[in-house]
Every structure is written in C-alpha cells, then in structure tokens.
C-alpha cells in the first residue's frame, strides 16, 4: 500500500476586480470546519483577512464596472448569469465539499444545498429581462405626454453575506444585486468564507466582467462600518448582520444615512436580526430595494 498522497491545498484569497489578491494588510485568519457532533473543530484553511483598504479597492473596482454592467442589455446579463450557473454546476463537487465542511452538513444535505443554490442562481438569471416589464410601464398622465417609468440599478451595493448559510444564503443575496445591473462588494461570512471564494472562482471563469462582484473575506465587524460609511456606495444589504460578531446593524444603518444609501435591513423584529429561511422562494424585494425608478416624460405632437 502506497503512502497517502500529500494533497495540494488551495490558498483562499480575496476576489477584487476580477483578480485574486491577498489582503493588502498581509493578514489572514484560520477557518475551521464545524462538523456536527465533533468536539474539536478542524482546521480548513487560512482565509485572507480583508482590511478597510481592501474594501476601498473593491469599491473602486465595483464603480469601474457599473457602466458596463448596468449598460449591458438585460438579455446579455441573463446569459452571463446563466453561464455562472453552468460553471457552478461544473464545480459542484468542490462547492459541496466547501458547504459540507463550512456548515458541518452531511454530504447528502450539502448536495441539496448546492442544488438549491444553483437553482436559485438560475431563478435570478431569468429575471434580468423581465423586471422592467413587471416593475415599469406607461403612466397614463392627463395630458399630451408619453410618460414611462422603468427600473434602473442604483449602482454599487455592499452586501453583508449571511453568516450561516455560506452558499445558498450567499447566492440568495448576491444574485439579486447583480441580476438587476448593480455591482457588488460582498463581505463574506466571517466564519464560513470558503464557499464565497469558490463562487468567486466560478464568477471569474464565467463571463462576469471584472469588478461586478468583489468578495472580501475577513471580520465583518471590522470591515462593514467602512462600507456602510463609504460615500461611493449606493446601497447596503445588512442581512449578514445577523449573528455577526461585533456588528450592530443599527449603527451600520446610521452610517449608511450619511449619503442616504438604500438599506436592506436584516430580517427579524425590533432590533433583533435573524437569518432568514433561505429555502423559501424569494420575492422581489431583494431586487426592488436596489432599483431606482426613472420616469421619463416627452410631449406628443406633430
């Protein structure tokens, strides 16, 4: 019997502007698996501990990508997003492994989660060229004017990815942001960041333009305030504030008020924040929160 092969491990890095840099801070942190029923967590990898400057760079990348992505045809965005689902399917084994280790799931359960995540991605991919018809339309004004309202992306959305659901939850918050033509700076689950980086690899090898999705791993409580206060960020999704260590979503919302960011609050009641049930079919609110309605008037004359 030959000795067990020494496997080649992956270095998990950030995903910014289509590249995979290490944190500019040079920091990393250990990521542990939390298998059910095991007393001792197992070391999985060292993830990059992104800094405020990494977040800043990610915002610059996201801003650079806005024009091309928002300006792409909805059909094209749909094609690109569907391509992402194809690539996810082809990397299924790795995603299952990531989810299994990150969330401590049984293999069959992890399989189901990955299937749901890919299906959810496909669901959003199909929305790109439907939204304007569902949400927009002609306004029958009392005068000789053509008057039409249509949704437009708000710009850059900072996304606090859910802490627990490392892939299905992640997909459920990222896909609606980019399906609508926004670009995203995603703060991955602090304790379970590996599926986010694998997803980033799927994005990088699909046709998603650089900068459309940027993934920063690290401490949510450290980086989130910088994104919430960033004046070139147009919106923030606070979903991942639930169960995030050292994160007060009210504080983040208050910081977001500085440039009147569109805010998607975490689920829950009062000041509580709970992670939603990701298996339920989503509605439109994750998309509509990050859409502006533009109304255009023009006279009708000879």
């Amino acid at each position: 019997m030959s000795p067990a092969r020494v496997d080649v491990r992956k270095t998990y890095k950030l995903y910014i502007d289509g590249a995979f840099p290490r944190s500019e801070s040079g920091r990393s942190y250990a990521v542990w698996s939390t298998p059910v029923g095991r007393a001792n967590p197992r070391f999985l990898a060292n993830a990059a501990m992104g800094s405020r400057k990494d977040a800043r760079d990610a915002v610059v990348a996201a801003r650079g990508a806005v024009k091309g992505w928002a300006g792409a045809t909805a059909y094209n965005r749909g094609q690109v997003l569907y391509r992402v689902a194809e690539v996810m399917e082809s990397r299924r084994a790795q995603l299952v492994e990531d989810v299994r280790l990150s969330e401590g799931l049984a293999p069959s359960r992890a399989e189901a989660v990955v299937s749901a995540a890919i299906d959810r991605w496909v669901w959003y991919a199909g929305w790109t060229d439907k939204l304007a018809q569902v949400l927009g339309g002609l306004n029958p004004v009392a005068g000789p004017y053509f008057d039409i309202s249509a949704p437009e992306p708000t710009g850059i959305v900072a996304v606090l990815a859910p802490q627990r659901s490392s892939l299905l939850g992640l997909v459920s918050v990222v896909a609606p942001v980019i399906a609508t033509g926004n670009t995203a700076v995603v703060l991955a689950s602090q304790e379970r960041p590996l599926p986010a980086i694998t997803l980033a690899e799927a994005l990088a090898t699909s046709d998603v333009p650089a900068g459309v999705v940027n993934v920063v791993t690290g401490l949510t409580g450290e980086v989130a305030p910088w994104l919430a206060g960033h004046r070139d960020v147009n919106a923030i999704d606070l979903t991942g504030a639930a169960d995030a260590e050292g994160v007060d979503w009210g504080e983040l919302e208050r910081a977001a008020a500085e440039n009147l960011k569109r805010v998607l609050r975490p689920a829950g009641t009062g000041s509580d924040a709970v992670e939603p049930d990701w298996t339920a079919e989503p509605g439109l609110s994750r998309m509509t929160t990050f859409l502006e309605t533009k109304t255009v008037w023009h006279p009708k004359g000879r």
Partner: protein
Amino acid sequence: MPIFEYAPAPESRAIVDIQPSYGLFVGGEWIEGRGAAFKTTNPATEEVLADVAEASVADVDAAVRAARTAYTRVWSRMSGADRGKYLFRIARIIQERARELAVLESLDNGKPIKESRDVDVPLAAAHFFYHAGWADKLEYASLGPKPRPIGVVGQVIPWNFPLLMLAWKIAPALACGNTVVLKPAETTPLTALLFAEICQQAELPAGVVNIVTGAGATGQAIVEHPGVDKIAFTGSTEVGKSIARSIAGTRKRATLELGGKAANIVFDDAPLDQAVEGIVNGIFFNQGHVCCAGSRLLVQESIAEEVDRRLKRRLETLRVGDPLDKNTDVGAINSRAQLDRIAELTAAGEAEGAVRWDTGCELPSHGFWFRPTVFTGVSQTHRIAQEEIFGPVLSVLTFRTPQEAVAKANNTPYGLSAGIWTEKGSRILWMADQLRAGVVWANTFNRFDPTSPFGGYKESGYGREGGRHGLEAYVTTGDPR
C-alpha cells in the same frame, strides 16, 4: 409706462375665512396645542394671518394614539371599496372648494394665484381621485402577495406646495389602509388645517387623518414616536439624513423626497422657443421653491449667447408681485429665512466670479421678494452650481458634447430630476438612460401627474410618490426576504 399696462386683477380674498387662531386636529376634533402658539404670515405683506398651535411631544403622542385607534378599530378593517369612497368624497370637496383653497394657499405661501388655482389645487384633487380607485384594487398592483397596510404613518411636508404635498402623502396612505399624523410646514399650515375641515365634511372616521402643526421639534417628535410605523418626508436633504439616522436600527420604514440641483440641458437643435419656456418654467415656477427645479441650465456652447439673449428677453416679461393678482408670474419668497438664504448664496455666486443679472423689476415695499436672477459664467465648482438655492435663481453653464453634458449633469450628490431639449429622438433616449435622476423631462419640464412616479436617486432621497410605484411605500406584503 408701457402702452398696454395690465390693470390689477386681484382674486378676491373674501372667499376665505381665516380664523384668528387654530388648534390641532386630533381624533376628529380640534384640540388646544400644549406648545407655544406661533404666527403664520402672508409673505407678500408680512401681515399676520393667524395664530397656530404648536404640537408638543404629548400632543404628537395623542395624535399617534388617535391614529392607532382609528387604524385598529376602523380603517384597517374597512373594505377597500369604502375607503375609496371616502377618498372620492375628499377629492370632490377639494374641487368644490378649489377657489377657497387656492386663495388660502397663495395667502399663506406667497405663490401666484394662477399656480395655486391651475396647478396645486387641481393636482391635489387629482391625487385623491387617482388613489381612491386603488383602495379596492391593491391586489392587482403587483406589490407582492397579500398587500396589507403598515399602520400609523407620520408625514412631514414642506412649505413649497403645502396642499399638494399633503395630497401626495395622505391619498396613497389612506388608500392602502393606513392612518396618518401629518405635520404641515410651520410657515404654511393653513391649507392643511382647512383640509382637516374637509375631512370632517367628508365624515372621514375620526383619527384617520390627524393634523398637528409646529416646527422642527414637532416633526422630530413624529419621527421618533415609537407608535409610528412609517415616515414619509419631503424636505431638505439635511433633515432627510437626520430622519434616516433617527430610524436606523428600528423597523420604521421611510420614504424621503429631498433636495435637487437639476440640470436642464439644451442642445443646439432644441426647439428654442419652447426650450426658453421650459427654462423659465423650470426655475421660476413657484419662485424656484421646487425641489426638482431646473436650477442648472446646461446649454451647448454654440447657442449659449442666443439662449442667453432669448432667455433674458423673456424674463423681462415676467410679472413679479401680488400673489393674488391673476397676472402675477412670480410671487413672494415664502419666508425671511428663505430670502436670507437666497441672498447669501447669490452673494457667494458673485464673489466666486459668476456674472449676475436680474430683471431689475420693481418689488413691493413689504414682504419677501427676490427678482428673477440669472448667473452666467458659472462653473461646476461654484456654490451656486452645487447647492440648492430654492429660489428664483438660475445658474448657466455650458457644454460641448452630449458626454460632457451628462458628466456635468450627474456631477452632484443629488439626483431628482433633469431636463433635455433636443429635436433628435435617439439623443433624448440616450441622454435619458445616462442621467442619474428619478424624473427626466424631455422637451418639457416640471410636469406632474398622480399616475407618474416621482422621486430621486442618490441624496435626493428614496421611494417614489405617485403611480403604482407610490403604493409600495404604504403596504407590507407576504413577500419573503
């Protein structure tokens, strides 16, 4: 003296019956305010019109409780069809009392009677009509599964379109089954107080609409009241931000319709005579007290001189004066504080090197007045190109290419509205795509309609008012997140 000098044509103010003092309208009744009463004046004459109660924190609390009671016991249980019928009644009464409302609005606000008569009041009635019809059709509005009312809505509105903003706020709130506590601006409370009387005539159930008067502190009490489920605010970006901060970390929802610094972009192939009208309407309508005013004129360099000449010639014909005169085009500035702000910013414009021109028209000796003013040679870096002046002051800038026009137009934290003037259809559509603004008027400006969603991008706020979109702010649905 001109050979065709229009004689005064004043609208009679006999139609309005202003009481010496007003209380608060809470739970369907008039109550005394616990704060110190304040005076509302006619800005055209500085004449005191009435004493108005200031709602204290306790008064606001009473109003919110009245609204809650009306919500749980009556309004949220009532069928949409019946809610709609109340709104239809209100719309009709506004039409029946249109002249009275228009005169009162012009007295309290200073806006020309032809605007209150032809714009504010008819549009206010139209908003109630439009939303009345929605009340029993919300399931068809694509708002998500099972739309339900939110509860008690706190609404704080500005002084520039007092009755119209009230209609924009109250009509959709009520149609969706919410009850409201509304605070009109402290300088223009009278039409809101008359509206309370209209609610009584319509026999609207007590507490569905509560009107509390006061200044910033009263507004803050509404915003911070834990019994308020949603805030709807129209006003300055500064206050909008403080509201957003104040409700952060709570489950209170908000729609904010805030400031603007709209670019009105004129290309060399524009229909020039209509463009000039659009420029005038864009910035001198309602004395420029309009959040979506076309306060930055971006004109293609090749026609800049011609537009300047035509514009100034046109401005010479504007009639500034008595708001109640049916021929007045530009009325009084709403308050001394606003007049001071306009004066401060225009002085800054001169100091920064822009060239100031005004019509030189005579102004009344009493009241708050400002001549229609144009600054040329303005750069984006000047304060008068960046800050909202909210007065009859136009800043003129030039551009050379459509790209440059877009870049300058979007170069502001605001994003409420924009104008495009060109006869080239494809350029209009391209420009409309590029402009980061919630409302884009092409070959027209300052058009409003209850069916047409209105609201801003960026620091001009969030949420839309009007149309199907405007309902979204006033319902909650089973839509999971």
